[in-house]
């Protein structure tokens, strides 16, 4: 079970001009004291077409995190307009907030973002080259999309025994020397070996 639960994310300064920094007020709860920091990232999706245009706006370490409920404001600069394909500047895109612990992502919160000209004139006849100063960013704060991933919260050594929490990907990538010599990974066992009916 995840040791950290995100209770709420409040989108501050929204809607706002395109050039304003992003501000998210994040409230999370932690089951027990975490020996290591959490790493939060804000990722701006420049284009729906390709991940190539993703920009990590900022990443920040959060810690120390004792057991309890905590909040902080994560502020990150607006995306670099030079990296956004001109055709995708106006319209709907996505901003992602991710959190990783010990290098493993365990939660991903996504918001739709609508970039629109406030001026009806510009809205009707948008310039070919986006005029970022006139763009307004509008985050659909009421509809966050939250994806949680099971990760291993314990120290890396426990990872082997504690297969239920392990993300299979890094596990299989481990060099054979660090694989435990005993028993095959439990993860290979069927979830429920019982004949239920």
């Amino acid at each position, binding site marked *: 079970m995840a040791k950290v639960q995100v209770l709420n994310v409040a989108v501050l300064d929204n809607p706002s001009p395109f050039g304003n920094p992003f501000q998210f007020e994040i409230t999370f709860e932690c089951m027990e004291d975490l020996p290591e920091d959490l790493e939060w990232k804000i990722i701006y999706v420049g284009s729906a*077409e390709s991940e190539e245009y993703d920009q990590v706006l900022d990443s920040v370490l959060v810690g120390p995190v004792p057991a309890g409920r905590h909040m*902080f404001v994560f502020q990150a600069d607006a995306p670099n307009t030079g990296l956004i394909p001109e055709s995708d500047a106006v319209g709907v895109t996505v901003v*992602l907030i991710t959190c990783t612990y010990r290098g493993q992502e365990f939660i991903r919160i996504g918001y739709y973002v609508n970039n629109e000209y406030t001026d009806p004139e510009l809205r009707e006849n948008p310039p070919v080259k986006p005029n970022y100063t006139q763009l307004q960013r509008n985050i659909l704060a009421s509809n966050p999309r939250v994806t949680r991933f099971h990760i291993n919260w314990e120290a890396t050594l426990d990872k082997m025994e504690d297969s239920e929490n392990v993300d299979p990907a890094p596990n299989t990538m481990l060099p054979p020397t*660090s694989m435990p010599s005993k028993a095959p990974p439990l993860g290979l066992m069927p979830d429920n070996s019982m004949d239920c009916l």
Partner: protein
Amino acid sequence: MKLLKPSWVNHNGKPIFSVDIHPDGTKFATGGQGEDSGKVVIWNMAPVLREEDEKNENIPKLLCQMDNHLACVNCVRWSNNGLYLASGGDDKLVMVWKRAAFIGPSTVFGSSSKLANVEQWRCVMILRNHTGDVMDVAWSPHDVWLASCSVDNTIVIWNARKFPEIVMTLKGHTGLVKGLTWDPVGKYIASQADDHSLKVWRTMDWQMETNITKPFSECGGTTHVLRLSWSPDGQYLVSAHAMNNSGPTAQIIERDGWKTNMDFVGHRKAVTVVKFNPKIFKKKQKNGSTPKPSCPYCCCAVGSKDRSLSVWLTSLKRPLVVIHDLFDKSIMDITWTLNGLGLLVCSMDGTVAFLDFSQDELGDPLNEEEKNAIHQNIYGKSLAITMESHLSSTIIENPEMLKYQQERQGNQNPNGAQGSGPENQTPKLTNVLNGESLEDIRKNLLKKQVETRTADGRRRITPLCIAQLDTGGPAAVNSIGMKSNLLLTSASKMEPMKALDSRFTERSKATPGVTSVPLTIGITPLDRVKDSSSVKEPKVKDETSSDSEDKIMAKPLSMAKRKGEMEGAEVVEKRKKGRPRKDAKMMMPISQPFPQVTFLLWKTTVSKSTNRACSDLQLIIKTRTKIHKTTDAIAYLEVENEVSVVSGARLSQLKWSRDGREWDTLLTSRITIATGSSDIVAVACEDRTLSVFTTCGRRLIPSIMLPAPLAALHCSGHFVMVLMASATLSVWDVQKQTALVKNESLNPILSGTDATVSQSFLTQQGVAVVSLSNGKTYCFNSSLETWNLIADKQDSLVQCADFRNCLTSQDALGSMGPLALTQGRNLSAGRLASRLSSTPHHLQQGMTLAFLENQLSSALMLLSASEYRHWLLIYARFLVNEGYEMRLRELCQDLLGPVHKSSSSSWEPTVLGLRKRDLLTEVLPVIGQNLRFQRLFTEYQDQLELLRLK
């Protein structure tokens, strides 16, 4: 009977594996499969019970849902006190849930369902130990333990008052363990497994009581669960899936002798779950009919893979009701309401059904008092759980009493420190928030929060802690509601979202640090480090283990010391039989409970008829004895006979050494026994003389002429005890030069038996103790001039006395002293008692009482103060637990003594050097734990206070 299938109770069509109604009857929990995880849901009971509540939209149906289990939840169970919910699932975990105070309705952040969680239940403990799916969990009576069973073939008993401590892992099943049930009396726990067996385990020593296989030998195929159940009167245990004549049954197992003569027959497929109604019923008296006494009976519901449910009364030969085709798939779990009239059943098909019975159908449920009376009848005691609920209505009159009661409750409450009483939490919360409202904090959070740069230049934010774990003011969640009213419409804009949607769930590959390859790289070095450290660790361990070996070496010594004379003497005797050869030099590392060592050089049997000294011995000539005083100072006593011959007389030498200091002295006769204590050294010679020296080698008294050859010689402190071959005993105090025991004959204890003296010793207080070969041990009381029996190995009282629940954790270590020595290790509380489960409780109670009183008086007789105190406290606890008011009063009175001094009073303020009133101060908190004695408590508390002020 009314039948209802509340369609709104579902897991979106996914199977429901378990259902349990909260003890207060207001809600119930279901467990099963969620979307991509296990799911636990807490539902409101009211809409199930009443149609108008079901229709009222203001009454919530779903109270809380928890998706924390990673895989299917197989079992949910409320603790008896209703504070906790335990759930076990395929993710091998047991989670314990508790309702979080002060948190109002909230949604799960980002969850698609807009249903708010009306109640907040959060996981307070994750119990990890099982290596396979957890199939069943069960709280013991009083919520002392939580048991969980798993497909890893084990049952784990968790200490519910100190999670995640494991009390015991029960191993023995050779197949998947799929059901658990506690005996309502608390003596046993039963488990049923796929290995065609049902096992009953004792809670006393966690050993297997019985293994029942016969009714299950024919069982073929598997069922998902095997939920068995114990009847509320404790007399019957009913299994799930059993076979009789190749037909599926639920086997009835009688507590008395674990007989398996009866079963519930009729289901067409395997029985998956059996659940007894918590109530005991009696026949409903019809109007007009003469009230005739009828036998109380139990009620039991049986669910099967054949999708049907049957309800049985133990007074009827046929089922009360059978309901077919209630579900589309196998029945998985059954739970009764506490009043015994309602029944919830859940099925693999993802639905639940509610059955509502009337009293006409089931009978009159006995009230708690009547139920208690039945328990009292069968087991001699009412179950404390009902007692406690009974007592909870008692008003606490005394503040001190309240304190002890609260302490006790505090101890009982797991995670008591985190208890979420409103009084505790509110100040904490305001503390955290420093009196600021959350809104204020939020306004300035960005400015206020501490941001630093790490060494590598990264931003690091210290989050603001707004609440301790498991608290959180209502403001915390309610005010952070998502208030933004933003709408995204326009269909054209929705189009690119499909492409975007995948981005929400897929971990971005372009994001550095999140990609799998860098991740692996990131992890590998870490692993290496761990590896190397794990290589180092064993080395460290080696060192520590060698260290601990030393400790172990040291331990047996001190252990042997404690174990005492009994073993010590045996060692001595064995040595004797070996008859060491002439001139052999012997080193005897004998450790003894008291700073004394006796080294017998020959065997002398003391019996009433013996008069001869066994002089058939080969004389030992040189020997050396270790006298342990303390661990740091070891004294050696060395005897060398025939050291030199001077003009025909043979001289013997006695050598004493400790810490480099040593002395020696010469005696004219051959030394037969030498022994020493921390104060003196005593030596007996062949010519029947006894010499006593100080530890500096100065002769204390001229040789004492003994009336008969010596059989045993002991020293302790400045006391010397001699046991003559003529079966007489003397004890002298060589410091005061007085005789404590003068040539006392052992005839009173030896006559009429063939017993011989097997062992003897002297306590530090100078009390002579003699053990006979028939297992009896006596001490001689010099003021009464009587032999007193202090221990008897054959004593059935010792073996049947059961005072375990009066032992505190410190007491469990046992007491050290002469009494413990004589009784040895065979004194483990109620060892036999467990086997005598059929012994009526009142008999065992009586035996325990008698035993404890014996112990108390024996400790007194042996002048063993620490043991006296030890047994006094156990005795007091026993009296309190079992409710012996008269004896308790007498005990308190004796300890308190007269409040007003009067010359006529013969009351002694001390006993064995312990101040009686100090003892009373220790006993009072024990009394304070039972509300029934609050008057008594107050009475003595006040008087003690009065005396203290004087």
